[in-house]
């Protein structure tokens, strides 16, 4: 959002915002270590998404590919999507039984703002994997799922 112009009051409605995110995801993001796409190409309301994070270097996650599920309800992006890991992972902000990213333990979801995107969530989770409290945690076997 640009500041200082009258246009800062323009609110992009949910569906057009998700179409923008879809197009950005299709083009490919940055170095490709995070990506996402729609789960069900027929769902006109674009609710279910799959995200992927490639584990960052110099951590126990290096070389692993993590799959996540994101669900954007009707109140997105006023409210954050629900986010859970499909691939098993041991991480402080992730519920050990369900794989759900717990908003209370993950600032981006707890302090959600309308401008944040699914890309921001995945990028921030990747950073979180490399944080001192996560980078050396013992991990479940690769290729197992919640």
């Amino acid at each position, binding site marked *: 959002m640009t500041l200082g112009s009258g246009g800062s009051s323009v609110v992009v409605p949910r569906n*057009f915002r998700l179409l923008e995110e879809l197009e950005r995801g299709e083009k490919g993001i940055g170095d490709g270590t995070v990506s996402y796409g729609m789960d069900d190409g027929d769902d006109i309301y*674009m609710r279910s998404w799959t995200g992927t994070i490639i584990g960052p270097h110099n951590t126990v996650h290096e070389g692993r590919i993590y799959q996540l599920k994101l669900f954007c309800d009707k109140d997105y992006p006023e409210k954050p999507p629900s986010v859970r890991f499909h691939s098993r992972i041991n991480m402080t902000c992730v519920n050990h039984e369900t794989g759900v990213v717990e908003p209370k333990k993950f600032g981006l979801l707890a302090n959600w703002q309308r401008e944040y995107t699914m890309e921001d969530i995945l990028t921030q989770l990747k950073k979180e994997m490399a944080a001192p409290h996560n980078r050396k945690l013992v991990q479940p076997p690769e290729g197992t799922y919640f």
Partner: protein
Amino acid sequence: MANSNLPRRIIKETQRLLSEPAPGISASPSEDNMRYFNVMILGPTQSPYEGTFVQLLIGGVFKLELFLPEEYPMAAPKVRFLTKIYHPNIDKLGRICLDILKDKWSPALQIRTVLLSIQALLSAPNPDDPLSENIAKHWKTNEAEAVETAKEWTRLYASGA
């Protein structure tokens, strides 16, 4: 208030859309976002998207949504179908392949002209510039059958309910 900076041009266009609607088209802004319109387009007569007459016209009502981005009118409105439709230039998510929504946009065009162009696109599907490859292929190999499918989808999904 989210709409306090609404440009005069948008206000004018909106007033005219409401007071002098184009035939077979309605567009009204949502209460909480004056740049976001609920649109209904009646499928044109003689097209596979028209409704059925049973004393009065039933169905053939297509719902769309339209958004005027911050750059409007220097950038085109964003429009998509919410009603499922079998058409070679419209994809599963309702996105529309239409030149004036992309590189042929001009600030001289308006919401009204965009919606009239979409209505015209329903009368003249263009399988040579497809957005849905499968539907375009169907159209080119067996147009009569593709038109039947389009009519079937109109009956199934474009009830206006």
